[in-house]
């Protein structure tokens, strides 16, 4: 085996220029694959992060039936038990309890329906970026009966900072819930529906307004990252019991779909790239087999079994691809890591497009272990497939024909 390996290594380099070009093509392909897969991973991670930080969190824990009905009738009690579970849970970056109800809000006479959300201002900051999206004014929590509105909602109401707004709804106790709230802040939310409908008050105010006690509609949880959400959800499910838990992929199915389509488009391009590399390898190995017809014929005539010839040629192909792969990873991985540490800020049109989708206008990369592993398997697999034809051709040669040829 070491002899075959040595033989193969020498054969690979019998034409250094041809082999060098082939290796260069492989290196180029590997670097591109690693780079683009890293870029897509970074983009998707960022999209998920920005989306979950806008509002939903990586997962939500709510009362049974809340996901389907979304009324005050479905709730969880934010008692010591649940607090303990959330505090103890591993992989949780932050959690925020919320009371979510429907309300009517008016400045003069005409009322607008609003999605009323009671938030704990301190805890909310650990999950969502709502407080960072203030365009003017301050967040809820500093004074009682303060309300913060989405920018379009405030505009539709004709409300300005300091205005007293009439908030009306039905309490959980079926009483009339009606009170005056002072507009203290206006948020600019990238999601148009939210911007037109979201109204924030403090959790304490909401629990009083809806006569809701220590009940909350949901607890939004931020995990370490999108991939960790499922694990945290499973752990909480085991721990928490009578709750309903939904992860970001259920909360935002359209995002999952977008990522799937985006990935599919990228992989089509990468497959084309890899196929080109495969033909490069095939070409190099086939050429080297054809010009060694005599040499291989002699080996066969001397009694080297065809199996060994097949192995030899195969080994050459894998060595060729392996060298390209190692060099490619040696360049690609540091490249992705460097870009992961140095995100690119976008400006102009691109930045506007990102902001339209509610994303920070920044390009980021992320290296997931699956990226280099997948690249290695793909390239080696391709080399193996490309070597099949030359290897079979070399091992099936008849010594007589080989010796008779040039």
């Amino acid at each position: 085996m070491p002899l075959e390996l040595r033989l193969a290594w020498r054969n690979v380099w019998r034409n250094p220029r041809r082999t060098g070009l082939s290796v260069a093509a492989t290196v180029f392909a590997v670097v591109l694959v690693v780079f683009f897969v890293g870029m897509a991973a970074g983009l998707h991670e960022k999209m998920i992060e920005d989306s979950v930080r806008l509002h939903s969190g990586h997962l939500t824990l709510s009362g049974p039936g809340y996901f389907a009905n979304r009324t005050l009738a479905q709730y969880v009690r934010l008692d010591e038990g649940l607090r303990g579970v959330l505090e103890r849970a591993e992989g949780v970056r932050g959690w925020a309890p919320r009371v979510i109800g429907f309300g009517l809000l008016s400045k003069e006479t005409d009322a607008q329906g609003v999605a009323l959300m009671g938030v704990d201002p301190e805890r909310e900051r650990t999950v969502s970026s709502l407080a960072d999206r203030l365009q003017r004014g301050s967040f809820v929590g500093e004074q009682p009966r303060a309300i913060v509105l989405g920018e379009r909602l405030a505009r539709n109401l004709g409300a300005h900072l300091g205005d007293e707004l009439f908030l009306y709804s039905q309490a959980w106790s079926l009483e009339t819930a009606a009170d005056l709230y002072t507009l203290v802040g206006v948020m600019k939310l990238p999601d148009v529906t939210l911007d037109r409908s979201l109204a924030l008050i403090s959790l304490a105010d909401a629990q009083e307004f809806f006569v809701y006690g220590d009940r909350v509609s949901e607890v939004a949880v931020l995990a370490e990252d999108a991939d960790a959400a499922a694990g945290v959800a499973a752990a909480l499910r085991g721990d928490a019991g009578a709750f309903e838990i939904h992860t970001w992929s259920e909360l935002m199915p359209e995002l999952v779909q977008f990522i799937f389509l985006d990935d599919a488009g990228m992989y089509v391009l990468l497959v084309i790239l890899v196929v080109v590399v495969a033909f490069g390898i095939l070409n190099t190995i086939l050429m080297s087999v054809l010009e060694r017809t005599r040499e291989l014929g002699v080996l066969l005539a001397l009694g080297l079994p065809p199996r060994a010839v097949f192995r030899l040629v195969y080994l050459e192909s894998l060595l060729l691809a392996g060298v390209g792969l190692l060099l490619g990873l040696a360049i690609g991985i540091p490249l992705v890591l460097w870009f992961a540490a140095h995100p690119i800020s976008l400006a102009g049109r691109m930045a506007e497009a990102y902001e339209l989708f509610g994303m920070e206008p920044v390009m980021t990369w992320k290296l997931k272990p699956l990226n280099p592993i997948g690249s290695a398997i793909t390239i080696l697999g391709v080399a193996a497939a490309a070597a099949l034809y030359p290897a079979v051709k070399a091992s099936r040669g008849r010594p007589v024909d080989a010796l008779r040829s040039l």
Partner: protein
Amino acid sequence: MRGRAAAALLAALGLAAAAGAGELLPAPPGLDAREIARRQEDTLRGERAYLEATMTVTSPRLPRPRVVRLRSWDDRLNRRSFIRILAPPKDEGTGFLMQRPNLWMYVPRVERSMRIPPSMMLQSWMGSDFTNDDLVRESSQLDDYDHRLLGIDPAPEGRDGLRAYVVEFRPHEDAPVVWGRIVSWIETEHHTALRQEFYDEEGVKLRVFELGDIREVQGRHFPHRWSMTPLDKEGHSTVLEIHEIRFDEAFDEGVFTTRNLKRED
């Protein structure tokens, strides 16, 4: 032989279908379903009606039922009405002004009024199982629906000695109506509504409205107890008991104004 078996089977199925429909008798010819619906409406509302009532809301959420007392002025001719809440203390003085298709509300505690947007019409009214739409749209049961007489129920459930027309209301194609179908039991002699069943567009029965305690007032046989039971919310129901009702009294024009909303009675 096979043909006869099939015929017997068909006959059995036919009988089963008739039994399922509550064994209605065929209606005598010459009856107009719309006319029956109109007379039901007349019995219930008159041209003008003033009433005082107590609404009791029962819900598994509440340790004891929520009791709301109210006064109402209904000017059906001009399609407007007014409701003033008298109790509980927290809601005292709250007013509702309906001027089809608008609904205004006034809350004295914060001294503010609000026009309730059309999107809110299916929300519960005052925590009850009646919707805002029930307040505003009642009279459209005549205009927005086609009426069909299904037959006569010789023994409506729980109503000994009464007979009722069973009329089906189906909304016009473009009518602003949320129900797919309403089936109404209307007593044959005095045209008092006894029961209405509300179905959604998929044919699922959503709520049952029952009217009882029928007493004669100014020549009308008027039900003094209205009860609404939603079928999708277990344990919820609302009963409206009418203590006093006076028909066709002259109303002060000032009743149906936004200014009246804000008046403290």
